[in-house]
């Protein structure tokens, strides 16, 4: 994982660890050194557990030397977004209100990866409570993009994306409520997937919007992601929504893509001038998909203009309900100012502990759910949600995969304070997969003139991660965008 050099794949690293040729301790030490090197510029990590990760690597090395069978990810360092519960590390969600919180347990996805041998080195920075697409609203400072630290890495899983792109870890876990894995993956030049709603357990994920949240993963390539989903997917008695069966990496890469019909929607390419270059790059990648597959078809999708409004009404409404748990009673932080009883304590604690965008979303969600507005906003958005889902499923009955941009623009400058509504439109291409529960992946497909990465998004029918990963892996056989690294 030396900067500027070709980095071995996760499978190559794992094979090296298992055969004894690469000690797990060397991988973990390299990961920690690289993280220490880039952290001052990128602020990608909120917590780095040097001693714990090295101790885990030493245990792995000893077990392998003793001939004890190693898991498929033995010795591989990884990072997780700081809204995933970890018993041995803080879990702040990028918020003051959880600054001192220590979960009593590991999220299911963390315990599965650890059981497969992977070594968690640290927790990554994010937009506070995953609410944003810039990774700038963290209470612990903004994240930089490894391709240009003066620009945003995307969000909300921006720390995870930056950590993978900068070569700190071969993979990182994120969560995706409206594009929070795919959009930062696109803006940082790596591959990121949001699986089908209900296919990766969310036990231990700090909830933002229950009907939209999904845990996803980022790595450089689709074949590495297949390896990881083989560990992450599958039912969990602790999450009643996690019902999809487990799959093997081989199954996930087994689709013959030469017969796939690829749909694209001309409406997605009538963007603003700001994003013209990105959109052109994606359009050209889609033309190239024609040669790898059974061909392209126009897929006119409806409701595209109302997607962001539908999404934000539902996400904010669910957030207002889910974040009511941060009340100064259970999760460490309580306002120091006293007097006036329990209600005033709750209000003060939330006022002091929650950041501006989080308060804004809780407030607007409360409004959309309130007696006079419920039908006009929350219920209406939920009715349109059904129409959006039906339209997408109908489209995905006539084509196998939809190809579209991940982000409407390249990574923007970090210091630009934009109007909230304007920033919400950055999610216009990603939210439909969450509203409809579909799997979607972002793969690198080129660069803009400013040498910033562009992502191509692929979306498939529910539980067709195999279609996405097989096509993405084929794309990565004929392109090398995913292998490019930012300057050290």
């Amino acid at each position: 994982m030396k900067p500027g050099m070709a980095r071995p794949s996760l499978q190559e690293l794992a094979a090296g660890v298992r055969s004894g040729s690469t000690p797990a301790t060397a991988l973990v030490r390299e990961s920690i050194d690289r993280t220490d090197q880039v952290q001052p510029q990128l602020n990608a990590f909120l917590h780095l557990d040097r001693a714990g990760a090295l101790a885990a690597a030493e245990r792995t090395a000893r077990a392998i030397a003793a001939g004890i069978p190693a898991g498929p990810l033995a010795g591989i360092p990884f990072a997780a977004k700081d809204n995933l519960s970890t018993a041995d590390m803080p879990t702040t969600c990028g918020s003051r209100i959880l600054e001192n919180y220590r979960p009593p347990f590991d999220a299911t996805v963390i315990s599965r990866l650890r059981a497969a041998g992977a070594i968690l080195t640290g927790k990554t920075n994010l937009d506070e409570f995953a609410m944003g697409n810039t990774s700038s609203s963290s209470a612990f400072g903004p994240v930089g993009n490894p391709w240009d630290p003066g620009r945003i890495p995307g969000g909300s899983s921006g720390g995870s994306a930056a950590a993978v792109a900068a070569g700190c870890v071969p993979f990182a876990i994120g969560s995706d409520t409206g594009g929070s894995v795919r959009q930062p993956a696109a803006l940082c030049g790596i591959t990121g997937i949001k699986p089908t709603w209900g296919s990766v357990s969310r036990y231990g994920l700090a909830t933002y919007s229950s009907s939209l949240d999904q845990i996803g993963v980022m790595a450089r390539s689709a074949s590495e992601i297949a390896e990881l989903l083989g560990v992450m997917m599958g039912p969990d008695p602790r999450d009643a929504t996690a019902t999809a069966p487990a799959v093997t990496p081989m199954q996930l890469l087994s689709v013959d893509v030469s017969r796939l019909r690829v749909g694209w929607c001309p409406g997605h390419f009538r963007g603003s001038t700001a994003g013209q270059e990105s959109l052109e790059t994606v359009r050209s990648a889609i033309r190239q998909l024609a040669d790898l597959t059974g061909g392209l078809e126009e897929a006119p999708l409806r409701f595209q203009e109302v997607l962001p409004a539908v999404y934000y009404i539902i996400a904010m409404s669910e957030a207002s309900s889910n974040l009511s748990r941060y009340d100064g009673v259970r999760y460490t932080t309580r306002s120091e100012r006293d007097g006036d009883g329990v209600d005033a304590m709750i209000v003060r604690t939330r006022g002091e502990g929650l950041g501006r965008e989080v308060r804004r979303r809780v407030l607007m969600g409360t409004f959309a759910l309130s007696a006079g507005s419920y039908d006009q906003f929350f219920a209406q958005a939920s009715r349109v949600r059904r129409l959006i889902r039906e339209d997408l499923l109908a489209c995905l009955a006539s084509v196998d995969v939809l190809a579209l941009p991940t982000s409407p623009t390249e990574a923007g400058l970090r210091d630009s304070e934009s109007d909230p509504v304007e920033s919400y439109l950055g999610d216009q291409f990603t939210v439909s997969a969450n509203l409809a529960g579909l799997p979607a992946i972002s793969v690198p497909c080129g660069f803009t003139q400013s040498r910033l990465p562009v992502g191509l998004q692929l979306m498939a029918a529910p539980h067709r991660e195999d279609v996405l990963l097989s096509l993405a892996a084929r794309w990565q056989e004929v392109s090398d965008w995913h292998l490019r690294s930012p300057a050290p």
Partner: protein
Amino acid sequence: MAVSPELETLCQLARLPVPENLGDAAALAADVAGILGFFSAVQSVDTAGVLPLYHPGASAFPQSSARLREDIPADSLPLEMVLQNAPGTDGAFFLVPRVLS
């Protein structure tokens, strides 16, 4: 008065503080108005006869709709773990400021 009665009620419902100075109140009112305008796009869709969809599991995976586990006792977190992050506890309960005077 710094904020409208509607905004004050909304802050109370959301258990969030009402802005104390005029500048913050005006900024919040402007944010709310902007986002409301953005929300109102959903009114443009004709949804007569359409049922709301509250989560995407319903027809993607029919057998998973409102799935419930068997009603049998199972382990949950031990009490000390549940209370370990509480800002106020007596070892058996969460403690909060006095509710009744």
